C-alpha cells in the first residue's frame, strides 16, 4: 500500500482560505453544483440563491422568496459571477474547476478566466428547483455560529490537524 493509504492523518480536503463574506456569505461545492447565497446590494433583507452545475454549467439564480433574478437572462448574472469569484478565493481555482469540470484556469485572473471559459460554452439556464435546498443549507451553515464552545476534551479532533499553508 502507498503511504498515503496507510496514514491515519492523510490529508483529504485541503484547508479553506480566508475571504470577505459581506457580498457572498455562503458558497459550497455540493450536490454536483457550485452553489451559494449572494447578498443583495440594495435590500438587506434579500439574498439571491445562485448555482452552477458541474459538467453542463447550467446556472440558476433567484431570491430566497423564489423570485427570478432579473440579471440571469441567457447568461451568468452578477450574482453567479460573484459566487464563482468567491468560490475561487475560498477553495482555490484548481478545486473549483475540477468540481465544475471546467478547464483549469491557472492562477492568474483565475476567476475571470474560469467565468469566461464557462460562458463561452453557452451554458443553459436551469429552473430554480434547488433554491429551497440551497437556502436551507445556508441556514444550517449559519446555525453553526450558535453552538456554544465547550471545554471538555474532544479527542476525535486528533484526526484533524490544522494545516498551515507554507508559502
Amino acid at each position, binding site marked *: 500500500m502507498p503511504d498515503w493509504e496507510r496514514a491515519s492523518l*492523510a490529508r483529504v480536503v485541503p484547508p479553506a482560505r*480566508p475571504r470577505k463574506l459581506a457580498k457572498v456569505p455562503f458558497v459550497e461545492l455540493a450536490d*454536483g453544483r457550485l452553489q451559494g447565497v449572494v447578498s443583495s446590494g440594495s435590500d438587506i433583507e434579500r439574498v439571491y440563491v445562485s448555482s452552477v452545475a458541474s459538467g453542463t454549467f447550467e446556472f440558476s439564480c433567484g431570491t430566497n422568496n423564489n423570485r427570478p433574478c432579473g440579471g440571469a437572462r441567457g447568461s451568468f448574472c452578477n450574482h453567479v459571477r460573484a459566487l464563482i469569484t468567491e468560490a475561487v478565493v475560498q477553495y482555490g481555482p484548481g478545486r473549483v474547476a475540477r468540481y465544475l469540470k471546467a478547464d483549469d484556469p491557472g492562477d492568474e485572473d483565475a476567476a475571470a478566466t474560469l467565468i469566461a471559459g464557462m460562458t463561452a460554452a453557452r451554458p443553459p439556464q436551469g429552473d430554480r428547483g434547488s433554491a429551497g435546498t440551497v437556502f436551507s443549507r445556508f441556514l444550517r451553515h449559519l446555525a453553526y455560529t450558535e453552538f456554544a464552545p465547550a471545554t471538555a476534551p474532544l479527542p476525535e479532533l486528533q484526526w484533524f490537524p490544522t494545516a*498551515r499553508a*507554507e508559502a
Partner: protein
Amino acid sequence: MRADLLTDAVAGLEAALEAVDAFDQVLAAGLLRPGPAQAAGLTALAGAVTGTPLASRTAEAAEKAAGGAAAEDDFLALAAGRTALLGSVHDALMSRIGEATGRESVTEEAPGSAGASPANLLNAARSWLCDVARAGWQGLDRETVAGAAPVVSALLPDTGLRRLAVLLDGFAAELAASAGPGAPAGRFPLRRWADLWARGLILTVPGAISPPRTSGVTGRLLPLGVDLTEHATAVQAQVHAILEPAVGGPPRLVRAAASAPKPDTVIGAGLWQLLRPHLSLLAAVSEGRSMDLEDMPVTAEGDLIWDDARATPGEPADPLATARVTLPTAADPRTAPLDRHPARIAVPVFLEAYTVAEDGTCTVTGCTLPVDAGRAPAAGPLTAAAVKASTACVGLLRWDDGTFRLQPLAVETTVKKRKAVVGAGDWGGGTADKAGLRAEKAAADARTVLSERAGRLLRKR
C-alpha cells in the same frame, strides 16, 4: 531523550498493522456483495485478535460479513476488533516512548464514567455508518453520504454527544468530497477512513461518550504549547501544560482545551476569536505566563475541564524553560481505554542540539525524525523557517504513517540577533504582530457578517 529508540523497529507492529490493512481494504469495496478478497481481509482481522476476549465475536462477525449478511452488531464487532488491534499498537508505541523519555506514567485506575446518552440518536448514527460500510468507499453515492447530515444536525445541539457529531461531520465532508465530481477515482485514505468509521461505531455504544468523572486540583500550571485541530466545521485548541500540585508531589502533564462547532468560513484568527473567551489559558500562553488553579476539575487522563473562574494569571513562565527543567520530572497521564489509538499519541518532549534539514526532517543524536511544521496554526508565528533556524524545541511526539514524528509547539530561535521563543499558539490570546492584527481584523469582519446574517435570517423562521 533517547531518540535512537524511536527509530528502532517495534516488535509485532508490522504484523498487527498488516491485519489492519487487510481489513481496511475490505471497506474500500464495501460489504454489500463481498468477494473472496474481502473474506480474506475479514479473516485476517479475526485471526489477529485470536486469544483475546473479542476472538469469538469477531470471528462470527467476520463470517457473517463475508457472506454479505452482516447486521449492525456485526459491523460493531468488526470495528471493536480493529480498535483493539490498534489499541495494542498504541500500547507498544507508548511503552517505547516511555523508554525514550525515561518518564514515569500515572498508574492510578480511572473511575468509570457517569451518565448515558439518548439511544435513538446513537442508533441513527450507527445505521448511517453501517450503510457506508455496505456501500464501501468505491460504492459511495451522494445520497448515502448525505444521510449523515440529519444525524449530525440532531447530535450537535447535545453537548454530551458532540464528540460523535464532530467526528461524523468531518468524516462525511471527506466522503462527500470523494463522491463528488472531479475527485480522483479509486484512491482512498484507507487507514484514515477506517479509523473514523470504526471510532464512530464505537462511540455509538451507549456509555462510550458519557462525561468522565473528575476531581479538583489546585496548583501552578506551566504551559508548554498549543495544539490546534480543526476540520471545516469544528475546531479545538488544546494547551499542553505541566501542573505543579499545591499539595506537593511530582508535577504531572495535563491538557486544557476549548472546542466548538463552526461555519467553514471561520478560520485562521477567527478560530482564536471563537475559543479565546472560554479558555483564559490561551491569553496566558500568548503572554508567556503560568496560571494558578484553584480546585480545577481534572480527569484521570489529565484533561482539565477548564473553568475561567478557577484560574488566575500567574508569574511569567517560558515554555522552553519549563520543558528543559520541569518536563523530565513530570508524570505522563494514562490514556482512556477507548482513546488507545496511534493517532491519539501526543507526548510532550524537549529537544536540543539538533539540525533541521531542507526536507523538514530533524536529526538529533544521529537519528532522524520527520517534523510536522505544517501542524502549526496559520494564525501564528511558528513558521517552518522558524523551526529550521531553531536551537531548542518543545514539541509533541506523535506517530503516523509508520514512523514517530515531531510536532513543534514552541522553539528557541534568534530573531534580529536576539534569543526569542516562538510558539504555535502565540497569537491564541491576541497579538501585536502586524500580520496577526490584519488576520484578526479580517476574521472579526467575517464573524460580524455571519452573526448579522444569522440574526436576520435564522430567527425569521
